């Protein structure tokens, strides 16, 4: 029983991390059909931002209230990655609309540059963020321990989800965003500046990666490859969940997270990786139509 609860909690925790890193990806892919290979590097930027904020705060804040740095880091990380995303969209992505594969490759080039920049600035050695004191330790119920930082991440994801829900489905900007997503030419005819919508949407997606970066900073040391280690799972979650629906991404992340943890329990983490891949491929056998419905009257776009 204890073990089952632990497993479930770990699954939930991993799912929430996958979800946090794939939320932004799902949004940019859903709206703009852009697979952003530099998304992992935005996560990295978020993590390094947390590290920098921690160092700056430790300079002039008394020890007792240093935990504030973390709450400052989240909006700052969001802001910085938002800005990066906006610039990237302007410089690169906006030139590649309609060329999905090319945008994937071009963003890979960006990701190489960002990784090297991180190495040049912070060195190849990993750096660490000390979790705020109230996140250290864990909640003990019965024989189970729920570490606070993982609980915190789950709440952070919920917060992001609710935030995204309101932005997409309840705000004026969200309405424009969905309009562009569903019918770009029509939206343009209605006077929506689709370029601007694209830019902000991409920036929001990147900003979410920044927040994800803050949370993964709690889990281990930060180096230039941190983004890469999270990104593959996120891509799989997006593929599994289908395009353009928040619920799909949540489900996809859940499947990836829980199936990884469950198989890991019985076998090893490497076999778990292979199995998750297998699950995705089998899923695509059953429901490929969810992924590429031909809607227009022209055969190939």
């Amino acid at each position, binding site marked *: 029983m204890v073990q089952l609860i632990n497993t479930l909690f770990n699954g939930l925790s991993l799912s929430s991390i996958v979800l946090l890193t794939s939320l932004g990806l799902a949004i940019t892919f859903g709206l703009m059909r852009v697979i952003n290979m530099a998304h992992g590097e935005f996560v990295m930027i978020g993590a390094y931002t947390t590290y920098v904020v921690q160092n700056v705060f430790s300079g002039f804040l008394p020890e007792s209230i240093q935990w504030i740095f973390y709450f400052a880091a989240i909006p700052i990380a969001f802001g910085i990655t938002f800005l990066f995303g906006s610039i990237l969209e302007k410089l690169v992505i906006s030139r590649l609309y309609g060329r999905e594969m090319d945008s994937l490759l071009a963003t890979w080039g960006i990701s190489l540059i960002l990784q090297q920049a991180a190495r040049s600035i912070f060195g190849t050695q990993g750096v660490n963020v000390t979790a705020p004191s109230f996140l250290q330790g864990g909640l003990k119920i019965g024989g189970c321990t729920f570490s606070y930082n993982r609980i915190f991440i789950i709440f952070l994801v919920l917060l992001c989800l609710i935030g995204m829900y309101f932005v997409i489905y309840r705000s004026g900007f969200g309405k424009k965003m969905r309009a562009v997503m569903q019918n770009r030419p029509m939206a343009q005819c209605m006077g929506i500046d689709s370029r601007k919508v694209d830019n902000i949407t991409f920036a929001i997606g990147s900003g979410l990666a920044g927040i994800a970066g803050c949370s993964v900073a709690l889990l281990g040391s930060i180096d230039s490859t941190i983004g890469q280690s999270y990104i593959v799972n996120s891509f799989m979650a997006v593929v599994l969940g289908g395009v353009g629906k928040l619920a799909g991404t949540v489900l996809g992340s859940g499947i990836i997270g829980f199936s990884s943890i469950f198989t890991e329990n019985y076998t090893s983490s490497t076999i778990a990786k292979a199995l998750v891949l297998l699950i995705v491929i089998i899923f695509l056998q059953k429901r490929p139509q969810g992924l590429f419905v*031909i809607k227009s009257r*022209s055969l190939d776009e």
Partner: protein
Amino acid sequence: MKENVLEIKNISVCFDGFYALTDVTANVKRNSIHFFLGPNGAGKTTLLDIICAKTKPTKGNVLYYPKEDKEMRLTGMKEYKIVQAGVGRKFQVPSVFVNLTVEENMILSLKGHKGIFDSIFRKPTKEEIDSIHEVLEKVGLLEDINTRAGALAHGKKQWLEIAMQIVQKLEIIMLDEPAAGMGKPETFRTGEILKQIKKDCTIIVIEHDMDFVKQIADKVTVLHEGKVLMEGDINTVLADKTVQSVYLGRGGES
């Protein structure tokens, strides 16, 4: 040999609760030019989609009677098998292979030899090349034979796609708005070409241009809101009051 080459039986299609087609039944006679008419959203294109297996019907069957083979049930077959069996289609939006030349487009469309081995080792025979030239001559594309298909003007792309259907030696050719983007003289010429080739095959057409319909139609089926409204020759159909009210009356022209 059966008189009908294609029998559409009780086809219904449902997209997320919306019935695009309801219980459509129609027979297409061999060596005829059969039109499907109807206002936008009547389900014409969907019907062609079902025949060529781009869309699966919720209910119903499509039966095909080839000249030299036994009856075939097209519903449930893979699209490339349907084409190999002799039922081909030109799509509404011209879809030729833009980075290949006109001739290469035609070679890919030749009947038979669709396997990997043949694609690598077999060269088109002299007769096949001749037939390509003949068809291209007919549609007036012979001088463009080495042009990249993507560089052709819109009307020429339409003709190329029609030519690609002809060279396949199909038994049933389905054309979705073949005259779209063509001027009157070009449309007329297309009609004459279709009349010529119907001695070897059956042609199913969707088109809005009434002059074109009058020029070549043998039989017309009018669809409205996913149901068959009427069937018959063009003059009877045009004279019918219901047809006029749902379709022709709205358009005003002709």
